[in-house]
């Protein structure tokens, strides 16, 4: 087995563990914790494979989240839970929290930067935050697409709300 597959399996295993851990933290029902683990593993495997194919983080996260959300939508008739709980928990390990922290940390260092270093610090911070924003937008959009294309049958679809 070459290093590519080992890397994908590694990411899938720890993505699954992270999803299951967050599933417990979010008080998911015990019967869907394994589904959450599978969903997280699938998401991280697809994201890693996409990144290996030279896609950037937002693109990779988009395809991973779309795959997980589509799989959950297809399997919806066989599930007891409504909504997109499993896809949501599966995508939690892809939320770039560490990158957001890094971006904000870089902006903090801007306050102490010596003359000539400001541009580098500002660029690093803004780049990280831009990547965070795009990745979150990608995940959120990908999670919403299957439900917009193929809404659940229970939904009345007759809402008019004030905005």
């Amino acid at each position: 087995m070459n290093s590519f597959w080992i890397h994908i399996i590694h990411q899938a295993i720890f993505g699954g563990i992270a999803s299951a851990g967050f599933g417990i933290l979010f008080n998911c029902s015990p019967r869907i914790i394994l589904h959450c683990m599978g969903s997280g593993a699938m998401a991280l495997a697809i994201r890693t494979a996409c990144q290996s194919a030279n896609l950037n983080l937002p693109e990779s996260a988009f395809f991973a989240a779309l795959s997980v959300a589509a799989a959950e939508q297809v399997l919806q008739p066989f599930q007891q839970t409504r909504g997109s709980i499993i896809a949501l928990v599966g995508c939690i390990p892809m939320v770039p929290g560490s990158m957001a922290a890094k971006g904000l940390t870089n902006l903090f260092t801007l306050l102490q930067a010596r003359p000539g270093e400001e541009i580098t610090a500002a660029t690093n911070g803004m780049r990280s935050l831009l990547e965070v924003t795009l990745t979150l937008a990608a995940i959120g959009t990908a999670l919403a697409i299957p439900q917009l294309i193929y809404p659940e049958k229970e939904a009345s679809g007759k809402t008019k709300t004030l905005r």
Partner: protein
Amino acid sequence: MHSDGTQESRLQRSCPVAVRPPLSDVGRLSLSIGRLFMEFGESARMIHEEILGMAHCLGCDSAEVYCQHAAIIVALRRGEEFCVQMGKVGEHGVNLRGSEVVKDIVRRVSEGDIACSVGQTQLDNIQRTIPSYPVWLVCLCTGLACSAFGRLLGADWLSFFPVLVASAVGQWIRRAMLVRKKNLFMVTGIVSFVSALLAGVGGRLLGSSHLEIATVSAVLLLVPGVAVLNTQTDVIEGKPNLAAARGLRVIYILLFMTLGLVAAQRLILQGL
């Protein structure tokens, strides 16, 4: 909600509720449902669908729901009767099993298995009836999740156990402080500092060479992932006000988390 009569008739026929409870009771029940869903981390779309579906089944001709971050307004109409009620929403969190319990109550009220008043009583007592995991298991699993994040970010195995312990302790502190109704942002800053400090000290004692990643991994339990994704969903589905409020809150949580992290990293990476 102004819908065509054909659809309304179809919906009402599919709802087997024969007794129509007073409109004010339906309004109160709808508010309780919306409030609990908001507090349990559901998106605005889910809240609208559940309330509207139930209101139709309880004989309402029309229903409108206005979700805001701190309040929810429900307007119901049945013939010449009209009822508007507003309620306050508490601290937003995530409790997926709580959401399932609420959905189950809504389904049973809609199908006529239980009366509206019984559903209201069950919702009023819901905090005592939602099953939950033991605190030690939640802390352990949170620690495990953060350690897994560390591995995903490229941390070495030497930092795995320190991150696990630090995050578990952080989760325990967070829970203890939130139960005592402490300010969420202050709690975030304190937990971030303590978790990062413990992970850094532990990693250093065990000889880890990835202290920076270890400290970052240990605070990832604080990232409001569900709120972030709900913000996205609300934007896409046309609820910009709620999305803006959720987004602002997410930004502040991340800011306080980073402040705690930076303070701990200063001690670990530069001093101590």
